[in-house]
């Protein structure tokens, strides 16, 4: 099984990963080999079986809507690639 070039390009866009033109064939083959493996699932009869998301059927806990964190902006921004006046900087988005 192999994946079409346009599908790889779409996945790369959705994943925000730049794909090198030279490696598309290789990526397609390897993804195809993994999809061949997972396609074994299609043969299983799962009618009436509930999907399982938490092994212990636990549900998410709720908590009071209270502020529990302190402001640590300086500590968090100290490890950021680029900041200014307490803001995270990225290339200009709007002209």
């Amino acid at each position, binding site marked *: 099984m192999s*994946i079409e070039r346009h*599908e*790889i390009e*779409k*996945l*790369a866009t*959705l*994943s*925000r*990963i*730049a*794909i*090198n033109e030279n490696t598309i064939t290789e*990526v397609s083959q*390897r*993804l195809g*080999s*993994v*999809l*061949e*493996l*997972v*396609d*074994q*699932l*299609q043969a*299983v009869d*799962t009618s009436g*079986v*509930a*999907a*399982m*998301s*938490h*092994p*212990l059927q*636990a549900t*998410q*806990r709720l*908590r009071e809507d209270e502020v529990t964190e302190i402001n*640590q902006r300086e*500590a*968090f921004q*100290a*490890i*950021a*690639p*680029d900041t200014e006046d307490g803001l*995270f900087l*990225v*290339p*200009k*988005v709007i002209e």
Partner: protein
Amino acid sequence: MHNLTIAQLAKGLQSKDFSSVELTQHFLARIAELNPAYNAVITVTAEQALKAAAAADKRLAAGNAPALCGIPILHKDIFCTNGVRTSCGSKMLDNFIPPYSATVVENFEQAGAVVLGKTNMDEFAMGSSNETSFYGPVKNPWAIDCVPGGSSGGSAAAVAARLAPGATATDTGGSIRQPAALCGITGLKPTYGRVSRWGMIAFASSLDQGGPMARTAEDCALLLNCMASYDDKDSTCIDRDVPDYSADLNNSIKGLKIGVPKEYFSDGLHAGTEDAVRSALAELEAQGAELVEISLPNSALSVPAYYVIAPAEASANLSRFDGVKYGYRCEDPKDLNDLYTRTRAEGFGEEVQRRILIGTYCLSAGYYDAYYGKAQQVRQLIQQDFEKAFAQVDVIMGPTCPSPAFKFGSKGDDPVAMYLEDIYTIATNLAGLPGMSVPCGMVESKPVGLQIIGNYFDEARMLNVAHQYQQATDWHDQMPESIQQGAES
């Protein structure tokens, strides 16, 4: 000193045979001398360790210090450590210095354990050989040309090479048990929700679970006593008392029912591995346990179900690495999209990118029901197999992995060949059950692991069985030849 177990070291510290500072210096010296050959430790925190050791010595002198006070350990580089680089084996986080510590790390800190450093691992815990680490592969101390297993290969190799008496690790599809087996040590993946995941960098959140690695089951019990805790900050953590995992170690296993799944002894299992595992089962039978043949009919589906669920969750978890707030950022991005896409293409390695793409595919419009929905249903079937089995037996046993440690590069270019390495371990993650690996023999001068799978929250019983096995055998005491030269204790 490095040949003593944690239990023995703790006694030595309490009775002042040596100090924590001496112990810490000893292990730091071993890391400096031996680690270049193994590449198991990627960050050494000597200064902090000696400071913590001095503090531990004070607590020990004052009396009433906890069991792990002054014991040197290593953390897998997936656990955030405040002020110490936490890379997760990735270029993406090569410069990441967390401003906080994981709950597991804090638990050990409060217990007075001494952190020697951080261990190497497959990038973002995705791998079974440690070959995907940005920092280069870890070498197996038993055979330098072979892999240590993965993803917790650094922790496993470090414990096997006596660079530390114990280490933390994580297991999403076998990442504690498989490297423990390949490196001849003892490792335990607890029940999902037993150990807090807070501050543990997420791979597949419904499968990830932290656990201990050490040379013996007795030591794993001591480490788990400290690691396991209820944590409000992890919403999937289970609010349940943590028992004393050391309390039942000496119980007799007479009458214990051991389920032996026929599917775990099928084609693809190395004959030598099978012999070693069967001998271990015979030993337990001689101790009074009863072997019961069982069936886990959906086992063969665990690998395909896992390779939908794990990449799907990974693709969501890893979307946070975008080069904006922390971690790697590409040079000279020309616009925001270029910043994202080049940062991720340059920051993630090949296997991580592959899993993100697979996960994105399985979650994308038109494919969700056929892949993710279907895999979650199959997961239910796999869990039901275990439920039926545990109605008849107390524990389940079989091999941890199909064969002993393999050579670097031997799995070739096909990712699926590597994925099948975890064929016996993945099902327990999907079901959320605890599993462990215990050394049970040698094949081609390389260790073999016996896997013990327990019912939910039955870690104490698994440790009891493993301890009883280790009382009667000495596989866990074997030492790789490469570290025997000049090894004085």
